């Protein structure tokens, strides 16, 4: 999963409208050794994607503006090779299924637990997969 001309660390893009979640995930993923970029909306994420080339996207489903599902849809069309993990409430099973159908790789339930985040992110970015 390394790319020529890029840092040796995998790049994770966190998209969430909630500052505390962005900061939490940025700190945690940085500690785990990843490069982290953040975006506070789907719109901002799509413009940032032309500059950063993430190896993984963590995407909140509940956001004002374009919303997680729409953002996921665009991501899959524009960058079909970048895996996406969605962040969602525990009960939104239909949303999870819809997202998986749209091509999301994994889901994280909120309130998020960092140990689960670690496991899922490492799983997505491990060289075996």
């Amino acid at each position, binding site marked *: 999963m390394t790319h020529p001309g890029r840092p040796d660390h995998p790049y994770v893009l966190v998209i969430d409208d909630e500052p505390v979640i962005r900061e939490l995930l940025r700190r*945690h993923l940085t500690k785990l050794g990843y490069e982290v970029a953040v975006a506070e909306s789907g719109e901002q994420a799509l413009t940032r994607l032309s500059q950063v080339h993430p190896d993984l996207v963590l995407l909140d489903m509940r956001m004002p503006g374009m919303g997680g599902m729409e953002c996921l849809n665009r991501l899959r069309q524009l960058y079909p090779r970048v895996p996406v993990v969605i962040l969602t409430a*525990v009960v939104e099973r239909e949303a999870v299924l819809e997202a998986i159908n749209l091509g999301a790789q994994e889901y994280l339930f909120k*309130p998020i637990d960092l140990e689960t985040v670690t496991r899922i992110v490492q799983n997505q970015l491990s060289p075996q997969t």
Partner: protein
Amino acid sequence: MGSPARILVIDDEEGIRALLSRELTLEGHEVRTAGNGAEALSEAHAGRFQLALCDIMMPDMNGLDVLEAVHQFQPDMEFLMMTGYGTVETAVAAMKKGAYDFVQKPFDLEELLLLVGKCLEKSGLRTVIQELKDAKKKLEDMQAQLIQSEKLASIGQLAAGVAHELNNPMSGIMGFTQLLLEDQTLSKQQRSDLETIYAQSQRCRTIVQNLLQFSRRQDPKKVELDLGLILQATIDLVKYDFPSSGVALVTRIPKDLPHVFGDPQQLQQVFLNLLVNARQAMAGRPQSQVTIEASLEAGHVVVRVMDNGPGIPKENMGKIFDPFFTTKPVGQGTGLGLSICHGIIQQHQGTIDVTSSPGEGATFKLSFPVLTSEDGGGKR
């Protein structure tokens, strides 16, 4: 001349019986006759009558005794008494015992038929009144159910909103606590305090997730199913928990229950909830027992979960399906279990209610309409 009725003519004189029988039959009524009290009673036992024309002076059992005996089991049956001259006092006594009116022998047939018509009219009105009362009772029950479900729905919306709002701050509290805990330079006390914060925030997380679950109001995915199998699967889940709490679990699940239409997962959640509640209410009490049984009653599969525990105090009976109502110690119950059950049962066109008297345990009765052939083919 009014609608046809079933009329019983009771007289020891055959001539009178024949006359009245013929005339009333001509009026369109169905007439049976009895020559004495015993025959009258056996006729009244065999079928319902709107009206009896009853002679007062009869050997063995007089008219008054017949009236009293019949009203023991057919209180709606009207009595028109027939009496000879000089026994008006007895006729009045009969009216005090509930007879509609009396005629004196020899009677004028026209007059008697008029009286019969009036009496039947009254009897018909009473039937209508009873039907209205039944309908009113039914409406009141439905209204109560409706109020309960609306209450649940609005609280559900509120709960969902609050829970979603709490999701992110809870993530923050839990997550940043976890980040702090990774610091190897923490003192023992600091670490222990942070672990407390983390454990407490996990508790909050569980509550938030339960709230969301409660408010989900997900449409059930219904299939044709055998409730007996669902019950058995649920029992299998909990049967080892009962002996270890010192509670006996008695199951009476017949093999061939008619099918109902339901969401297996949701129904299992309901039964599980009731069984766990019952076991918790019983634990630590001597000779405690929980019974779960299913039966077919009037086109419904009825499930009962009964315990012989402390029962539910009267003042709590109206609240037990309310969200957040719990009598469990703080932290052991969210108070959402039974209201979730209530919501699920309603979405199954079923009913759930509870009866209990303090000291004698509680019984939860659930009722599900049996799947009919019309339901089976079409909509799923």
